[in-house]
């Protein structure tokens, strides 16, 4: 079957399951309770932290991809209840530690100050359950499953149309976006 024909069929399928995007749009339009519970300045703080891990480069960074919203939603909805306060307390502790080190909020720190602070966290918090590791895992997952991360930072191929078992790549080849 020609790729063109497959794409034509796909368009038909999209039409036939049009109800799904509608429902989805409704679900997305409703503000998540997690987002409204979390103070705005904490969301902003998360955004700065995530953006320091994955900054704007030739592609937009974590803040542009709204990774902070993802983190708030996933921690509140998907983490087991006993792990949720651990994360939020970890965020407060990190902010306090940053103020102690740099004399100001992480959000107000320069790039050099942020870097020094994160290097310290990285050296101190080695355990997988530690705030820093959780923040990093959430940032990576939130970013690469966002539309920006999935389609700009990675190579998004929703309908590959075929399987190429072997191809040569170079140092600039982007990974295919995982879809599961």
């Amino acid at each position, binding site marked *: 079957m020609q790729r063109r024909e497959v794409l034509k069929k796909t368009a038909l399928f999209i039409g036939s399951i049009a109800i799904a995007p509608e429902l989805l749009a409704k679900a997305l339009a409703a503000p998540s309770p997690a987002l409204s519970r979390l103070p705005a300045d904490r969301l902003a703080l998360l955004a700065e932290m995530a953006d320091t891990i994955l900054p704007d480069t030739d592609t937009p960074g974590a803040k542009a991809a709204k990774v902070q919203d993802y983190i708030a939603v996933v921690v509140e909805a998907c983490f087991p209840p006993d792990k949720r306060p651990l994360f939020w307390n970890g965020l407060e502790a990190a902010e306090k530690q940053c103020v102690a080190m740099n004399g100001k909020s992480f959000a107000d720190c320069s790039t050099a100050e942020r870097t020094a602070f994160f290097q310290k966290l990285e050296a101190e918090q080695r355990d997988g359950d530690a705030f820093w590791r959780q923040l990093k895992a959430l940032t990576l997952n939130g970013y690469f499953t966002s539309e920006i991360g999935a389609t700009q930072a990675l190579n998004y191929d929703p309908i590959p149309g075929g399987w190429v078992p072997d191809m040569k790549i170079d140092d600039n*080849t982007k990974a295919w976006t995982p879809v599961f």
Partner: protein
Amino acid sequence: MKKRKYDAIVVGSGISGGWAAKELCEKGLRTLVLERGRPLEHISGYTTALTNPWEFPHRNQVPYDEVKKDYPIQSICYAFNEGTKHLWAKDSEHPYTQVKPFEWIKGYHVGGKSLMWARQTYRWADFDFESNLHDGHGVDWPIRYEDIAPWYSYVERFAGISGNRDGLRQIPDGEFLPPIEMTIAEKHLRDAIQKNFPGRTLVHGRSANLTQSINGRTPCQFRHLCHRGCPFGAYFSSNGVTLPAAAKTKKMTLRPFSIVESVIFDEKKNRATGVRVIDANTKEVIEFQAKIIFLNAGTLPTTQILLHSTSNRFPNGLGNDSGVLGHYLMDHCYRAHVSGDYEGFTDHYHKGRRPVGFYVPRFRNFGADKQTAFVRGYAFGGSVERGPAFYGGAGQDGFGADFKKAMTRPGAWSGGLFGMGECLPHFDNKVTLNKDKRDQWGLPTLNIDCQWHENEEAMVKDMLATGAEMLEAAGFKNIRPYDTHEPPGRGIHEMGTARMGRDPKTSMLNAHNQLHAVPNVFVTDGSCMASAAAQNPSVTYMALTARAVDFAVNELKKRNL
């Protein structure tokens, strides 16, 4: 009470029920297909098939509270996520009890688990039908490979199976579409196994995914979103393949929301006359009549129906003169996982997402190999691919622009093998009815008492060792053998509770999947299995079903039913 008459009734619309429906209808029988769950239309029912990752409210994770409340068991399945959760039966609505942990995974909708299955399709070997006879575990199969071989061909041609003709006795060749090629790292592993371990072979996985168009179905687009339902109809499901064929005959009546309470037995005629159904929504009780009845509700629901179909003649369940009904529950043992990383081939990659990997057919207690710690054997499935680098990113040091760039690259080659061990039939692995614990329709729930035995334990140890030594021989690093210690059930290959056999004193069904004691009732789902072998079972259920329908309709014509 309303009454309705048909030529045939099929209970269940999953993998085997869909085949029974198609075959019965194509042979001209007016057939009623009863499905306990909701309707689910091919294509339009696959509501998340084209959803992008960022469009899921929780990015494809199911919220914690929802999992705890509705899906504590179902969520254990690898294919459960925000994009598929609507396809799993809520544990909160369909309770059962466990004497020992048994994870009962189920999909209650038209098509059943044929929508979410892993699509692996391997024929049984000639010796798989003889193993019970040879080592004395279980009863002898009443059929041999030659009896089922033409029916394997028959169902493979219609279902569409991709695979390579490897010429191996353990997994006989079938009617294959072209195979889905291996990655370069898998070929490397294959060569290392061939060189270092005579008798072991790594071959292409065989799966019910089309690599060429057949019967107007589109070939696989390599999205690997099969579990959400394929809008291209590229893999085999009842919804996309057998039920449309049955519907085309205009002989099929498909009735969703129909929970079969029992099979009605007429002692004078020594025949079943129909089934009693509870409408899942209205709870109205309706009786349907037919000349022949196929039970294809899935191993445990079919067993539940038979146990609940009591009469003066059958106080312990329909056709249960032997007392074996509900006993000899088996699953495949998937506990052994061995993973590793391969550091070479850094300038090689792949494109597309395969719906299949590779397969290492059974090599234990086969040919020259003789084991003392266990009887029978196991197969391995597996794959070696490159995921994105960010998968391992949280454990790596770094952040900022360079880290971000590194995270967007393909990661190292990684993968491995997982064992699939044959489970022996044990009388004490059983299900019974909870007379005092009923579901919302007033039906007794199922009590499952099942555990792994010594033979499976010994096999797991061996799988971990052989898996690791094969990766080692291929130069893999960071080799991690891991026993998941998962209980039975998670293999989702539950089978054996209404087994076939030669002797009515020790089995429920004869060589044609016909109840020894009630000639017009046939059981062709997993409950009919007298042993488990190591292969994924669905294609064997399909073949047994088509074969049994052929027999049943001939018998009906001869007025023997």
